[in-house]
């Protein structure tokens, strides 16, 4: 590292780093040759059972101790009770849950008389809120989403999802805000939180779920807990970022105004960091939505559960409709919260009467109340609740239509051929090859890659992390996970990067693609399974396909952004040297865009690790499958071991690629 700081040595060290990587690769090649000749001892092909430590069992003992002997379970159960109270309240208000074990009679009657709120009142309120935040377009989007949800007959399940969301998001916000402030205020908190955050962000979501179930009961409570934990990290990061960015002028002005520390925080820092904090709110909401949908796997009723059930029984029409609802909700929540970020307070002229100042608030309340009351009358029953028969759902027709289209010979020929080709010619051979490679050889290859990309530190981490994976006893399944990720990301690159390059040539097209990517990134990942299953049915190819579309988003996006950020004078210099478009792309634009593209590539790999686990329910044989199986039981130890495996593999790539991008940027003088 020290030698590399010296520019004159850079070339030399680059050579030596390559050298080290080559040595590793040669050794692993020798191992493979030996293996193919059948002379490699068995303990070098796979670690023998005997040396694998019983990590899961040990963890189970530890958990049992913490849970029962230390009494953690009582703590969590009482937290669960509090959460359950809130969830019951929101559930009752939104869809009439009618279950109030913790309420006394009076408040029971009160809340009982409130809920469930008629859908038309919610839609009207949301439309006014949308108008306040972003004018007519936002009003139509927000109101329309809720009208659609009701008319398509999914109001109740959507409200089940929302009832968890509106409890989880504020709690995640508050916890994240407080931790973010603590991390900003005290160095040691920051140092303690950082590594935990990076593990949390790569931990597969099934690993959030089981502890939640064990410590916090099945159903909405566990769903809320898992959702909260999942949504906290970005809030912490955004809070810290925002507080650090507050300009010193404002801070000094605050000091000279005689602020105490508390006043400084609440009146100066937090308001001044408004933008970042609200961006954090946006991310919290989006992550909460994504997670709530996924908690279907632990029996949380709602949109996710319905979608899961429909997909399992191959009811494509209904799946599609639920998918549309989820996407609409995601876009609405995203746009509304983003509009809130940029909304600036506006001043009123003197003498403006109070009703004019609060006109929209009054309008919102008025519309809400009006629809509430109207919908109580028999004639307008439909405004209160859309019955099964009245809904516009065309599930069966769409189903028939989709299946019809898919059965058209030409289409079936294409998908069938693709399925066959990918499976027989690409995926299975690749998988078998990876599984055949002796464990130490594969580890060495990964370490060589990490060293070549990021130098010593990522290489050491790669060795340690993959060593742990090998010792966990789940090597083969980990390799299958890895194989799925690598194949999907490779295909995704072959599609996404050319697409990005093409789009970057045309400004309008580029903007349009970026906008699409932006929206697509807000969709809960679950959605991406729908087209995959539609096209390829339930098998490996569908898994890979869903990962491909999911990961194409960051790849395309960062390719465009990287190419766009190439300074104009550089391309002009190339023009003046008489380069044609292709030469310019290959020798000027791509090299300069590469660091940014690497960030997209990294995100794609992280997304892939995330998706491959979700896709498990389609029926893979990887870690995800095994993880999902643990959800049914109480194998907390095993669940954690599996989750950590995924996390460690993801982190290895994360560190190596980001380090490479950082160095490359520095070398190119891109700051």
């Amino acid at each position: 590292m020290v030698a590399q700081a010296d520019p004159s040595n850079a070339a030399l060290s680059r050579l030596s780093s390559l050298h080290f990587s080559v040595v590793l690769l040669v050794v692993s090649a020798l191992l493979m040759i030996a293996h193919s000749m059948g002379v490699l001892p068995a303990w070098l092909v796979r670690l023998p059972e005997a040396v694998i430590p019983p990590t899961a069992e040990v963890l189970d003992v530890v958990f049992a101790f913490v849970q029962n002997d230390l009494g953690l379970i009582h703590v969590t159960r009482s937290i669960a009770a509090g959460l359950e109270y809130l969830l019951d309240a929101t559930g009752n208000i939104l869809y009439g849950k009618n279950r109030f074990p913790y309420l006394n009679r009076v408040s029971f009657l009160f809340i009982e008389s409130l809920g469930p709120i008629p859908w038309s009142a919610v839609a009207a309120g949301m439309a006014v809120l949308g108008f306040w935040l972003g004018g007519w377009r936002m009003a139509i989007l927000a109101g329309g989403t809720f009208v659609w949800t009701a008319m398509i007959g999914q109001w109740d399940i959507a409200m089940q999802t929302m009832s968890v969301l509106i409890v989880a998001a504020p709690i995640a916000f508050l916890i994240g805000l407080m931790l973010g402030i603590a991390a900003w205020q005290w160095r040691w908190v920051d140092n303690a939180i950082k590594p935990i955050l990076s593990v949390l962000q790569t931990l597969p979501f099934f690993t959030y779920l089981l502890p939640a179930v064990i410590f916090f009961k099945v159903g909405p409570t566990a769903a809320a807990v898992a959702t909260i934990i999942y949504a906290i990290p970005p809030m912490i990061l955004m809070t810290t970022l925002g507080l650090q960015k507050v300009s010193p002028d404002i801070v000094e002005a605050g000091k000279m105004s005689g602020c105490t520390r508390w006043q400084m925080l609440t009146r100066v820092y937090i308001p001044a960091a408004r933008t970042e904090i609200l961006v954090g709110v946006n991310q919290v909401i989006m992550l909460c939505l994504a997670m709530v949908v996924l908690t279907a796997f632990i029996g949380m009723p709602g949109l996710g559960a319905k979608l899961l059930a429909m997909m399992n029984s191959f009811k494509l029409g209904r799946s599609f409709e639920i998918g549309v609802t989820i996407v609409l909700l995601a876009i609405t929540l995203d746009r509304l919260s983003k509009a809130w970020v940029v909304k600036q307070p506006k001043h009123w002229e003197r003498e403006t009467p109070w009703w004019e100042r609060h006109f929209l608030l009054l309008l919102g309340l008025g519309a809400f109340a009006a629809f509430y009351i109207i919908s109580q009358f028999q004639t307008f029953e439909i405004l209160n609740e859309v019955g099964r028969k009245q809904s516009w759902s065309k599930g069966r027709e769409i189903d028939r239509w989709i299946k019809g289209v898919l059965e058209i010979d030409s289409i079936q020929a294409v998908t069938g051929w693709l399925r066959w080709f990918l499976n027989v010619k690409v995926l299975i051979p690749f998988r078998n090859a990876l599984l055949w490679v002796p464990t130490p050889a594969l580890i060495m290859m990964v370490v060589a890659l990490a060293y070549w990309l990021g130098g010593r530190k990522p290489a050491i981490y790669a060795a340690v992390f993959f060593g742990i994976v090998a010792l966990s006893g789940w090597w083969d399944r980990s390799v299958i996970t890895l194989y799925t990720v690598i194949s999907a990301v490779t295909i995704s690159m072959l599609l996404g990067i050319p697409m990005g390059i093409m789009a970057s040539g045309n400004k309008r097209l580029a903007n349009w693609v970026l906008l699409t990517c932006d929206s697509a990134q807000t969709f809960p990942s679950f959605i991406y399974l729908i087209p995959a299953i539609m096209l390829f049915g339930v098998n490996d190819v569908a898994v890979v396909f869903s990962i491909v579309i999911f990961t194409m988003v960051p790849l395309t996006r960062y390719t465009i952004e990287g190419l766009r950020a190439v300074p104009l004078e550089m391309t002009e210099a190339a023009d003046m040297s008489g380069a044609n478009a292709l030469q310019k792309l290959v020798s000027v634009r791509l090299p300069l865009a590469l660091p940014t593209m690497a960030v997209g590539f990294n995100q794609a790999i992280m997304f892939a690790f995330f998706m491959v686990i979700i896709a498990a329910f389609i029926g893979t044989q990887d870690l995800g499958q095994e993880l999902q199986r643990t959800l049914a039981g109480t194998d907390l130890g095993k669940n954690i071991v599996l989750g950590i495996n995924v996390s460690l593999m993801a982190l290895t790539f994360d560190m190596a690629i980001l380090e490479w991008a950082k160095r490359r940027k520095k070398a190119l003088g891109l700051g």
Partner: protein
Amino acid sequence: MTEAAPVISAKNVWKLFGPNPKSYLGSMEPNRSFEDIRKDGYIAGVKDVSIDVGRGEMLVIMGLSGSGKSTLVRCFCRLHEITGGTIEVEGQDIMSLGQKELIDLRRRKMGMVFQSFGLLPHRTVLENVAFPLEMRGQERHTRRERALEVIELVGLAGREDYFPRELSGGQQQRVGIARSLVIEPDIWFLDEPFSALDPLIRREMQDEFLRLQGILGKTVVFITHDFDEALRLADRIAIMKDGAVEQCATPGEIVMNPATEYVQKFTEDIDKARVVTVGALARASAHTAAADGNALDSEATIQGLARQLINDTRAFMPVQDKGGALLGTIKRQDALDLLLGAEG
């Protein structure tokens, strides 16, 4: 102007920026120059400054960009912890104050206008101006009254409910000025308050500032880049270079007797006749007794008396102060040289 006990008294103040300033200063050999210190990896923001500011005095600090003006003023109100020396405000060593006492001192005695405004973007003009009062825990109604009063004073009446981003640079600076005045501070720090303004408005603001100061009569420490501005405002001018004060004296003194080459360069382009008073040129000499006829006012500038000096043909003229006491005489030729530039 200056009374016996200074309001701010700084003695051998050092402010070093760097990894370990205190121990570095402790072990530093004396007389190291700014450059030497920089080579050791430290920046001398303030370098061994001793200066007093009297009650009701207006001290103007000048110097090139990066000479340490803002740093020095920040030391006065302890926005920076100084590395060495002592600073007393009204006889109290401010470095020995606890957090609470410091907050109290700022809440009651100090106002500051920042070079870059430092307005809170999420608050209206009114809320910004009332901010220090709010921090003091003043009740909403009274602080609103008081804030409106000051807003009126700086000429922003009618804009109370605007947000900073809706105001021009000059208006924003007025908000900054109003905020610094709202607690009626005894000591008023202004860091290049008019630098963001165009010449016309700047002139207007200077007049307004003088008018305010005429009403309020505060102790003022004022930073500027602009010599004309300094001349219009200052009782005394301190000229800084590389963290050190090169000279601190009245404008006339600085122009007539620059202490160092640097100060001289600084004042080279100034129209001296505008600055130098008759009193500064007056000498008690043998001619004093001989000179007769009407005496000149010692506080008038040479430029102010230009017409009279040209028309009056006496070689020597008597000078008297406001009380009528005779101070000495000035040589007409000296005055004309200053006014028209020396011959040859």
